[in-house]
C-alpha cells in the first residue's frame, strides 16, 4: 500500500491557470484510474462534476421532505390550536376553518424547505470545517481568485508519490506541490 510508503502526505496538487486545463487534467486523472481526488476552482464549473463523475445530489429530495414537514407541521399546529387547545366560538362559525389556515401553512412549507436546503447543503459539504490539508500549499491562496487546482489524494490505491507526480507533470500544470496532511 502506498499509505505505508508515504505516511506524511495528504496528496499531490497540480496548479492550472485555466478552467480548461483543470477540466482536461481531471478527465485524464479519471481515465488513469484515480478516484480519490478533488478539483478546486474559484467559480462553479459544471464540467468538473462530469469529469469527477459526481453522483446526483440528494438535496432536492431532502428539500421536498423538509417542505412537506413544514407544511404538515404548520397545518396541524393551526388545526390543533384552533380546534382543541383554544377553541373559540365566534358566532357559531366552524372551528376547523381550514381555508384560513392556508397562508400560514404556505409560509411554514417555505420555511421548512429553505432551512433543510441551507443546513442540508452545508452539512453534506461537511462545512464549517476549520482545517483542511489543501490550505498547507501556499499557492492554494489563489484558488479563491483565479487559479485552478487538482489534488490527487494519497488515499487513492493507485497513488504513488513519484508516478503520480510524473503523471501530473505531464498534464502541463504551472506546478505540482506536495500537500502535507
Amino acid at each position, binding site marked *: 500500500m502506498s499509505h505505508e510508503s508515504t505516511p506524511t502526505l495528504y496528496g499531490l496538487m497540480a496548479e492550472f491557470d485555466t478552467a480548461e486545463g483543470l477540466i482536461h487534467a481531471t478527465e485524464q486523472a479519471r481515465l488513469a484510474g484515480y478516484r480519490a481526488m478533488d478539483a478546486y476552482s474559484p467559480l462553479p464549473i459544471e464540467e468538473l462534476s462530469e469529469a469527477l463523475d459526481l453522483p446526483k445530489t440528494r438535496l432536492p429530495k431532502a428539500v421536498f421532505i423538509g417542505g412537506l414537514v413544514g407544511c404538515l407541521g404548520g397545518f396541524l399546529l393551526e388545526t390543533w390550536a*384552533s380546534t382543541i387547545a383554544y377553541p373559540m366560538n365566534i358566532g357559531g362559525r366552524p372551528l376547523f376553518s381550514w381555508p384560513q389556515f392556508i397562508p400560514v401553512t404556505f*409560509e411554514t412549507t417555505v420555511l421548512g424547505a429553505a432551512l433543510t436546503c441551507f443546513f442540508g447543503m452545508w452539512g453534506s459539504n461537511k*462545512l464549517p470545517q476549520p482545517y483542511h490539508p489543501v490550505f498547507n500549499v501556499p499557492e492554494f491562496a489563489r484558488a479563491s481568485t483565479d487559479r485552478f487546482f487538482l489534488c490527487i489524494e494519497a488515499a487513492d490505491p493507485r497513488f504513488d508519490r513519484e508516478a503520480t507526480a510524473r503523471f501530473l507533470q505531464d498534464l502541463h500544470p504551472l506546478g505540482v506541490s506536495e500537500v502535507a496532511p
Partner: protein
Amino acid sequence: MADPMQHSHHAAPAGDGALAALRARTPEVIAPGHTFESVTDSISHIVLTKRTPIGWFIGFAFAFLLLMLLNVTVAKLLMEGIGIWGNNVPVGWAFDIINFVWWIGIGHAGTLISAILLLFRQQWRTSINRFAEAMTLFAVACAAMFPLLHTGRPWLAVYWLFPYPNSMGLWPQFRSPLIWDVFAVSTYGTVSALFWFTGLVPDMATLRDRAESKVAKKIFGAAALGWRGSARHWHRYEMAYLLLAGISTPLVLSVHSVVSFDFAVSVLPGWHATIFPPYFVAGAIYSGFAMVMTLAIPLRSVYGLDGFITMRHIHNMTKVMLVTGMIVAYGYFNEAFFSWYAGNEYEGYMMLNRMEGPYAVFYWSLIAINAVMIQLFWFRSVRDNIALLFVLSLLVNVGMWLERFVIIVTSLHRDFLPSSWDIYMPTRWDFAMFAGTMGLFLSLFFLFIRFLPAIAIFEMRTITPEAKLKHHG
C-alpha cells in the same frame, strides 16, 4: 448562477440587421477587459483597503445621527406609550402600518433580483444582487420595528404573535391576516438571510485569502466556514442556490399578498378589494427597484463601480420600474372605476373623499408621480440621465409612501358612521421614528459596503469573458 459555458447573447450571431443594431446599442453587463483577477481585485479592494473614502464618513455620520434619533424615539415610546404618536380612533393604524408596508415593499426588489431573475437567467442581476439582498434584510428589519413597537409593550406581545406553549394556555388567532403577516414576514426575513449568507460564503473565502491583517483573516476565515472551492462543494452549492431561488420565488410574491390581506380581508371601503394582492406586489417591486436605483447610483460613482453596474443595469431597472409602475397605475384606475361602477355609496364616497377630501393633495401627488411622472421612463434620454434618474427614483419612493398613506388614512378617517369621523395628524414623534428607521437602514447599509463585498465576486467571475470555456479535446 450563470453557467460558465453559456455564451453572452452578444456573442451569438444576430438574426437580422435590426436585431444586430439593437444589440450594438445595448451596453454590456460588465465593462470589457475584466478578468477573474481584476474583478476580484476591484471588489475586494473596497473591503480590504485601509483607506475609507471621506464620502463614506459623511454619509455614515448622517445615518448614525438618524439612528440615534431612533434610539431616543423608542426610549420615549417605551416610557410614555404610543400616545406620543398621532394615532387616534378611528385612525388606529397610521404611520406604523404605512411605514411597515413601505419598508417591506422596498425589500421585495432584493429577492426578486436574487431569485426570480436567477431563474430567468438574467445575467445582469449578478452585479446588483448582493447589495439588493442586503437592502432587503435591512428593510425587513426596519419594517418589523413598526408593528412590534405599535404594540406598545412588545415584550408582552410575544404570546399572541408566535405560537408557543405559554402559562396562560393561549394560542394565536390563526384566522387573522395579522398572524399571517407575522409568519410571512418572519419567514421572508429568515429565508432572505439564509440566501444572502449562502451567497457570501465563497466571497468570504476570497477575502480570507487576500486579507493582510491577521484579525481580518480570522474574521473572514470564520465566516467562510472553511470554503475551499472544491468541485464536490460547488456541485451541491449550485443545486442549493437554485433550490433556494425556487423556494424564494413564490415566497416573495406571497409576502406582499399577505400584507395586502391585512386590508383586503377587512370590510372597510377602500380596503375590501380583490385587486389588492397583485397591486401590492407590483407596487412593492416598483418601490424596491426605485430604492435599488437610489442606492446603486451613488455607490457606483463613489466606488468607481460603473464597470460592474453598467448603463445596462440602469436601463433594465428603469424598465422594470416602468412596467410595475404601470401595473400600479392600473390599480389606481381600477379602484376608482369600481368605486363608481359598484354603485355602493360608501365606496363611492371613499373615492370622492380621496380625490376632494382633506388628504386630496396626497392623492393627486401620488397620481402625479406613480401614474404620470413614470411615463418619462419611456424615453431613452431619460434612462441615460443618471442624475435625473436618481431624483426620479427618490420621488418614486415618496410616491409609494404617499400611496400607503392615502390607502390607510383616507379609508380609516371616514368610514361608515359620520359620528366616528376624525382627522389624523402625525406628531413629531411619528416623523422621528420614520426618520430613525431610515437612519437604521442607512447605517447598516454603510457598514455593509465597508465591511462586506457589495457585489458578488464569484458570480461576477462567471460573467467575465475568461469564464467562457473553449471547447477542448
